[in-house]
């Protein structure tokens, strides 16, 4: 009796990210850098409320980017 060999193949799909993902990533980094600069500089300017608003904004943008990137990678 011929033994049937069952071959199991695994496929790994490598998908190249479109160019705009990199652009968005750079914009995201730039925005966080801009907000962080303003936050730190506002503290130097002795403007505590402005510093707080900028730090919170930077944290929100950072977190939003991380969450979006994570969710996209789960697809």
């Amino acid at each position, binding site marked *: 009796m011929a033994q049937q060999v069952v071959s199991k193949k695994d496929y790994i799909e490598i998908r190249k990210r479109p160019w705009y993902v990199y652009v968005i990533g750079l914009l995201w980094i730039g925005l*966080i850098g801009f907000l962080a*600069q303003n936050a730190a500089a506002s503290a130097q300017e002795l403007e505590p409320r402005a510093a707080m608003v900028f730090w919170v904004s930077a944290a929100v943008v950072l977190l939003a*980017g991380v969450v979006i990137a994570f969710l996209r990678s789960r697809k």
Partner: protein
Amino acid sequence: MAERVLPKLGRRNFLRTVAVGAGALAIGGSAKTAAAASPAFVAQEFADAAGRSKRPWWVKTVDKPTMEIDWKVMERYSEGSSTRGSMPKYVGQAEVDRYTAAGAKLIKERILGNVDGYQLRDFAMSSAHVGVGKKFLGPQTAPTPESRGVPKWTGTPEEASKMLRAAMRHFGAANCGFTVLDENTSKLIYSKDPDGKELIFTDEVKASETDKQRFIPKSCKYVMAYTVQMSPETMRRSPTMTGGQTTTLAYKRAENIQASVQEFLRGLGYQGLGESSTNALGIAPAFGVLTGLGEMSRLNRMISPEFGPMVRVFKLLMDLPVAVDKPIDAGIMAFCKACKKCAEACPSQSLSFDTEPTWKVRGPWNNPGHKAYFEDSVSCMTYWREKATTNCGICFGVCPFAKKDKAWIHEMVKVGMSVAPFADSFFRSMDDAFGYGAQASGESWWNLDLPEYGIDSSQPVGAV
């Protein structure tokens, strides 16, 4: 059917993302460090033949100032008409006596009560500033080329401007500009100085003064307007003694600067005719506007694109030919139409709430012939004397242009004000939301480790 195998994305990509985020923060941090630690001292050669600094692109030079002027209506103003020395004329001596007594009583109560910004040390500092004094003709002590047996300095107008700009920075001025007196701009020289002496243009070559008159040679037709920075950190504590002494310090520094430049000109073989006392000789903001140092504003004072209202403006006449400058348009006057923050903050409601500037003056303390936001100087001065017991300055402190230049956002907002005036209301709202212009306590100022004079002298025009 092929089975899709998902890579182990979660951990790796998550870590990668976090690493990128940390990198962004690092960039932000280093940017901050760069902004803070870099140009503490900047030295570079003047790029312009006349020594004009390279200003940001959004500061445009224009042929006419952003404030309309009707030279036919304008007349020479007597400084004695200002409320500084003429309050009895406007409110009566009895009222002056009343608020003076009320102010004096309040001062004592505040010192004894240790009121914030009105403690004994605040008063002591306020009365501590001294200068060399001001003289129309200057100290007249420097050796002249004649006394040295050498010819006087000669050069092109551009070279003279550049030389003066370098000297003025060295003497302590923030920036300076030049214009020339003609039939119109001569009207900006007072008819009478604060001490009542007449200012008379003469064909004589040498300036002179008597007990009742000061003679200005027509050859002294070149005007130098210059600014002296004020400390934003003390000004934002207005109206306290801590805030009030901000202007006193700037005026005293200007006394030294004026004496220095007068002696410098004398040493070159030329004349420098200065203010004989505070605010003497001519209308400082007007000359500041004509020489391109800034624009007029709702404060009815000059606002500079670089320093906002945190400068005092001074002027000097001289017979050294210089290259003149043009007025500027940086969107400041246009922004004032939408902002009104100073008017809202003014405790005596002395500033105009009108959207558009007007030709109509509020009283004889204003000089007609220009379209401006005229202020009620009487209510302003009464508040100073009776309630603030010092000069006020709230309007300067809350102005959205009164920012330090550390955060990048400020430059972006200034660009926006210049090129997108339709967004001025939005910028004003954001200014409030970010807490700018909030008054600080006088007490806290004594804990601050500030640079000399409380100013950032590494913030010159166009040096970075």
